[in-house]
């Protein structure tokens, strides 16, 4: 059924259709409506789940870890400062191999206090062992939430479904909300690898000496390496049932592009519009939107990006003292795989500054006029 809903509610409907059994969450702008709707669904019986109210995001993730270890399909959502407060528990979830799915609304980190979008909150958690999906539409948010459970549970690795503050979280779009019966076909009930049960007592997360810890980390990485293929496979299964493919990247008009823009999140859908405009002006530009950042889509980067003469990564985030983080990782992925295609590292839209088609035009104009970047970072729109 088609509904006009905000991005936050697309997350709620995704969690509902996945038949989430436990939700533990703490409200924070701009995430609040995600769990507000879920709490209503729990109260009126639409969703047969336990809603656990907690006193902080740290406790929210702790409760999710406990619930997941007890064998329940578990969901939460947060943003920015709340995600940062969860940091310790994010390692507990991934290290404990618990397939919790979490919505994170990209909101800039304080100070200065900000509720507007950029990606530094989730990218600060890139090394916690969570999968990360950056969405570009409300439909993609809903679909990806359902897919995330399937992939997470198959690999015993938690997932973050990420969307931009306000640009998606509070923006209403038409979303096809799938039938429960077909979602059930796609996503059967959660079967945990091991769980807390009196029938078979175990100690979980106990002291792990140097003789075992290393192997546990090796196994986490090995399973993470299985994720790209599994995301594509489950994306194709999703397409068969619902008509929408859910892949690792979206490459748009890249085949004959001289300059490929690398983007993510809603900036990626703005870039698609910008590409169409520039194509009308005779510029051979393409857009490579990275939807999945963890696991990193190495194969797609190495296959698609070197087709261009120049690559321009537009990051809505920064690793202070380095570049934007997508740019870092694109460069690292291409190293020793391509003949010196220059990579321009642009930063734009920090703290919710609008990213418009003109932003990409400026990046492309710069890339056309320069053989190589003059500086490590190309700052777009800074008031100098």
């Amino acid at each position, binding site marked *: 059924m088609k509904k006009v809903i905000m991005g936050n509610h697309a997350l709620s409907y995704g969690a509902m259709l996945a038949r989430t059994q436990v939700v533990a969450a703490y409200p924070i702008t701009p995430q609040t409506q995600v769990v507000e709707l879920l709490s209503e669904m729990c109260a009126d019986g639409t969703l047969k789940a336990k809603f656990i109210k907690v006193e902080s995001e740290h406790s929210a993730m702790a409760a999710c870890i406990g619930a997941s270890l007890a064998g329940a399909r578990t969901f939460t959502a947060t943003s920015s400062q709340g995600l940062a407060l969860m940091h310790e528990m994010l390692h507990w979830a991934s290290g404990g*191999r618990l397939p919790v799915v979490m919505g994170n609304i990209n909101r800039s980190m304080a100070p200065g206090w900000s509720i507007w979008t950029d990606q530094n909150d989730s990218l600060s958690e890139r090394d916690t062992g969570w999968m990360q999906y950056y969405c570009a539409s409300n439909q993609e948010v809903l679909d990806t939430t359902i897919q995330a459970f399937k992939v997470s549970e198959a690999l015993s690795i938690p997932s973050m479904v990420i969307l931009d503050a306000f640009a998606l979280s509070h923006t209403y779009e038409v979303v096809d909300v799938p039938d429960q019966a077909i979602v059930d076909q796609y996503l059967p009930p959660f079967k945990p*690898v*091991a769980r807390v049960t009196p029938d078979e007592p175990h100690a*979980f*997360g106990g*002291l792990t000496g140097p003789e075992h810890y290393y*192997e*546990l980390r090796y*196994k986490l990485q090995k399973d993470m390496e299985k994720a790209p293929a599994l995301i594509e496979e489950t994306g194709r299964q999703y397409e068969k049932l619902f008509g929408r493919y859910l892949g690792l990247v979206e490459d748009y008009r890249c085949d004959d592009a001289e300059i490929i823009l690398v983007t993510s999140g809603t900036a990626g859908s703005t870039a698609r519009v910008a590409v169409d405009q520039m194509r009308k002006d005779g510029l051979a530009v393409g857009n490579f939107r990275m939807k999945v950042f963890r696991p990193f889509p190495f194969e797609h980067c190495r296959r698609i990006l070197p087709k261009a003469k120049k690559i321009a990564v537009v990051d809505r985030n920064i690793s202070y003292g380095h570049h934007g983080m997508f740019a870092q990782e694109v460069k690292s992925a291409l190293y020793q795989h391509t003949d010196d295609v220059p990579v321009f590292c642009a930063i734009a839209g920090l703290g919710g500054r609008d990213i418009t088609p003109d932003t990409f035009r400026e990046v492309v104009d710069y890339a056309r006029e320069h053989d190589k970047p003059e500086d490590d970072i190309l700052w777009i729109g800074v008031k100098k």
Partner: protein
Amino acid sequence: MPKKKDAKKIVFASEKDMPIMPMSLGSMLHNKTGSWRNIRPEIKLEDCIQCGICWKFCPDMSIEIENEFPVVDYDYCKGCGICAEECPTKCIVMVEERK
């Protein structure tokens, strides 16, 4: 149920044999945390009324009931003193370790 003391340390030869999560690795068998102890509980059994409060309160499960009386497992007792504090007849006293 086997006694803790009789259990064997688990060492996996290959990652393939290991569970994916840190789970029942038996690591505490050879990590005798009792060695951290500075003061030790000693129980005067003649004053013990067999109430089981020390057994219930011990946070490290280091008090076992044998022949209906409490016995301290000094391999794991860290000497926190909770048993002595809670004992209603004060028959548990904390004595300084001399090593």
